[in-house]
């Protein structure tokens, strides 16, 4: 049954995508874009979800989706108006569909009446139109269609319901069928031969072609239809419905009469051309006791025999055997054989050419430009590329000056290797990259809900949805982003009255944007609300002993306090942002994926929160430095410049510390040797200053013993392998096998603040 599980996995993946698509479509529909394309897309999404659900026997989902789909169909063709009520109901319905999908995925059972209320509203809406159309208020007939799901049992031979004998038995089972195709039948690529063949699968057939209407060659029209057929069928236990089913596709494209000989006149179908029917072939009871697979063979020979007989008889119908009768017999043989042994084993050689993976077919089809790959496989490649990067940098490090001079070819080779590795790495990362759209698209809905809950008017703008980030980063982004937007809606944007009083427009705006900046992705959440209430924040922080009573932090430091652990103004204000966790959770989540958060606020004008995220989680461009005897790495993206200590314009400050003066700006200085407690013998004059930029553009100068060079490293988590260390963002293994720690610039800078604050 693992194949079935595979299909299910595909189905659930697809559902996730379709549900996201629904969110997107409804965000636009809510905004007033109610054009046909959107409605069609919504209809298709629900339709696809229903289709798959039927195949797996998720009856609850099928039932609900069907009712919803019917409503959408009514909306689509204008029978029901897409009013705001209908939109709201539909959004609710999307949730119910999602719940059904989740329940199906986890194997939980939802209450039998789950969504029954909404379902009855769909009914009412559809009926509402019907009432307008005809006054008696009868439900539209179409709506009463019962959608019966069929559970697909892959692998097992399914019970052949369609061909099962009905509870009553026909007395003789002798049928006489007249079949006169119209031109349309051929135009739709139906083929009488195949229909006759299928009849032959039902029982014993004798076929006579009526060819008297075939004109002389001169009058012959290439697409004219001149031939009709008369078939005697001996098939005890077969119902007329089963025979009709054979002609199901050609109904309306042919004249057909089906008469059971010896049955009631009332049961007989009126024959349009009531001529004397030929005598049916005598039944051969011996056939009836034969095993199913034998019937096929005998059926064919009997058919061939009757064809031979039909010729010389030459009765009133001017019957003659169809010239290609042998061909017909040949054609029947495999068909009957296929009926008898319908399920070749998947591993059977016959199935081999066709059981190639689907993408093979797609490639040959030429229309599909993407393949789906298991994420694990991609991650394995990413990891291996990471190791390759390390090996490559190790090789490069081994090349000292003498070797370089001696092995120029090797050096050239290593340079090419470095380039290729870099290219490979970029390509692999691009595979994992996804547009932030998948996260952004969930936000309009959130904002809508928040607006309703808070009674505020809020508009959400999104910019840069197509910016791509590593898939893992995206997955980790949803919660923090949700939290930050909640925060903006709850604390940032004011009530319409207050906004009007402050001379702003009634509707507040939250702008969500993403852009790539160097090796980082910046995600900015801005609102035009009241800004952070610094007095209140500071007071709360003091109350919670996060800031000492005698310290006066700067405005920027106060703003950052909202991310401090244990600080949350949420519960004091409302239940929306609160939920027991504060913005500190956002910070720790973002840090977990190697990012940082910065907040800036303008009282009365708004707040901007900036998330800086790494493009990829796996590899980091760094500057390798030496502090005492140990290597450290500083992320290249945070380095502004490096200066020799001997030339650095240091200035002493009254507290005894040092600051660096850079273009009129005073930058705090951290001696890493001191900070990490590693006594150094290095000549103070030869040491280096690495000027780094932390969040929000504030700078910090790190003093190191030496700068070794630039390289790429694969990040290893310190928390997973050891424990969290203040001032250290992680570790990495260098080419020579040594472990180097990654300096956490932002973290180091905040420790200065803490010290100042303490």
């Amino acid at each position, binding site marked *: 049954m693992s194949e079935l599980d595979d299909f299910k996995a595909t189905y659930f993946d697809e559902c996730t995508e379709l549900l996201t698509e629904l969110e997107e479509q409804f965000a636009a529909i809510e905004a007033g874009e109610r054009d046909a394309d959107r409605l069609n897309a919504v209809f298709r999404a629900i339709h*696809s979800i229903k289709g798959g659900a039927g195949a797996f026997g998720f009856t609850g989902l099928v039932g609900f989706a069907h009712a919803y789909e019917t409503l959408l169909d009514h909306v689509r063709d204008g029978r029901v108006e897409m009013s705001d009520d209908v939109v709201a109901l539909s959004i609710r319905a999307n949730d119910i569909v999602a719940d059904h999908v989740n329940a199906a995925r986890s194997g939980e059972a939802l209450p039998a009446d789950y969504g029954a209320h909404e379902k009855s509203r769909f009914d009412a809406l559809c009926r509402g139109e019907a009432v307008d159309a005809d006054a008696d208020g009868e439900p539209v007939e179409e709506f009463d269609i019962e*959608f019966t799901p069929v559970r697909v049992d892959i692998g097992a031979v399914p019970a*052949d319901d369609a061909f099962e004998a009905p509870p009553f038995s026909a007395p003789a089972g002798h049928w006489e069928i007249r079949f006169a195709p119209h031109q349309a039948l051929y*135009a739709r690529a139906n083929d009488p031969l195949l229909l006759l063949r299928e009849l032959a699968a039902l029982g014993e057939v004798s076929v006579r072609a009526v060819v008297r209407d075939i004109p002389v060659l001169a009058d012959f029209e290439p697409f004219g239809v001149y031939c009709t057929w008369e078939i005697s069928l001996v098939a005890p236990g077969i119902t007329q419905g089963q025979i009709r089913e054979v002609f199901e*596709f050609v109904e309306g494209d042919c004249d057909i009469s089906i008469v059971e000989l010896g049955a009631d006149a009332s049961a007989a179908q009126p024959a349009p051309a009531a001529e004397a029917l030929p005598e049916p072939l005598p039944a051969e009871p011996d056939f009836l006791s034969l095993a199913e697979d034998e019937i096929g063979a005998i059926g064919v020979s009997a058919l061939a025999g009757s064809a031979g007989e039909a010729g010389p008889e030459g009765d009133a119908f001017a019957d003659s055997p169809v010239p290609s009768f042998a061909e017909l017999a040949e054609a029947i043989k495999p068909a009957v054989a296929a009926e008898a042994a319908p399920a070749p084993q998947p591993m059977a050689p016959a199935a081999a050419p066709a*059981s190639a993976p689907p993408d093979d077919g797609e490639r040959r089809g030429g229309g599909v430009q993407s393949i789906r790959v298991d994420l694990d496989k991609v991650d394995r490649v990413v990891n291996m590329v990471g190791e390759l990067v390390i090996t490559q940098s190790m090789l490069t490090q081994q090349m000292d000056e003498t070797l370089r001079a001696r092995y120029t070819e090797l050096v050239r080779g290593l340079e090419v290797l470095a380039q290729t590795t870099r290219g490979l790495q970029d390509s692999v990362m691009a595979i994992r990259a996804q547009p932030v759209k998948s996260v952004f698209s969930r936000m309009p809905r959130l904002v809508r809900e928040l607006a309703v809950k808070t009674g505020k008017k809020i508009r959400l703008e999104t910019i840069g949805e197509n910016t791509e980030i590593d898939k893992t980063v995206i997955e980790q982004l949803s919660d923090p982003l949700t939290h930050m937007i909640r925060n903006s809606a709850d604390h940032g944007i004011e009530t319409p009255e207050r906004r009007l009083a402050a001379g702003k427009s009634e509707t507040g705006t939250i702008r969500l944007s993403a852009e790539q900046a160097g090796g980082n992705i910046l995600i900015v959440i801005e609102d035009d609300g009241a800004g952070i209430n610094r007095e209140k924040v500071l007071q709360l922080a003091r109350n919670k002993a996060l800031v000492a009573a005698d310290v006066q932090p700067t405005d920027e430091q106060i703003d950052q306090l909202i991310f401090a652990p244990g600080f949350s103004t949420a519960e004091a204000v409302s239940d929306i942002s609160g939920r027991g966790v504060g913005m500190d959770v956002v910070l720790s989540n973002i840090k977990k994926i190697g990012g940082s958060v910065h907040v800036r606020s303008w009282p009365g004008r708004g707040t901007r929160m900036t998330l800086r995220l790494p493009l990829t989680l796996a590899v980091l461009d760094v500057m390798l430095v030496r502090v005492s005897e140990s290597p450290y790495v500083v992320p290249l993206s945070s380095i502004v410049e490096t200066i020799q200590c001997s030339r650095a314009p240091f200035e002493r400050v009254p507290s005894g510390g040092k600051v660096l003066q850079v273009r009129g700006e005073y930058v705090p200085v951290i001696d890493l040797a001191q900070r990490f407690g590693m006594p150094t013998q290095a000549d103070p004059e030869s040491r280096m200053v690495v000027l780094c930029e932390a969040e929000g553009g504030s700078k910090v100068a790190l003093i190191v013993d030496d700068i070794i060079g630039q390289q790429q490293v694969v990040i290893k988590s310190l928390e997973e392998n050891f424990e969290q260390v203040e001032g250290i963002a992680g570790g990495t293994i260098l080419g020579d096998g040594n472990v180097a720690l990654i300096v956490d610039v932002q973290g180091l800078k905040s420790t200065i603040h803490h010290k100042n604050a303490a």
Partner: protein
Amino acid sequence: MTGLRVLTVDDSRTILAMLHHTLSNAGFEVLQAEDGKQGLEVLESQDVDVVITDINMPVMDGIEFIRNVRASGQHQSLPILILTTETSQDKRDQGKAAGGTGWIVKPFDPEKLISVIHRVVH
């Protein structure tokens, strides 16, 4: 009956995968397309013996796809089966009017699917 080439056209990967499984187990060679436009592209470059197509698809729906196939002049006798969950007659009628040969009601029973294909293809 084995070795026939079937083009399956559906925007649902689940349905495509299930069709592929059922059809390849029955010895068919399976080609896939995700909408009518892709389906037409496949038909331009490949010989197929039978087409199974969904109706509701983005870009080009099944009805338009069938119409285009028939209008192309090269595929007058190519059997086209419509995959539909609609039990209502009108979708089938539309499909038939466009030139569809027959239909398969989703969710399909694997054996029924094969027998329906046998009804329309040599």
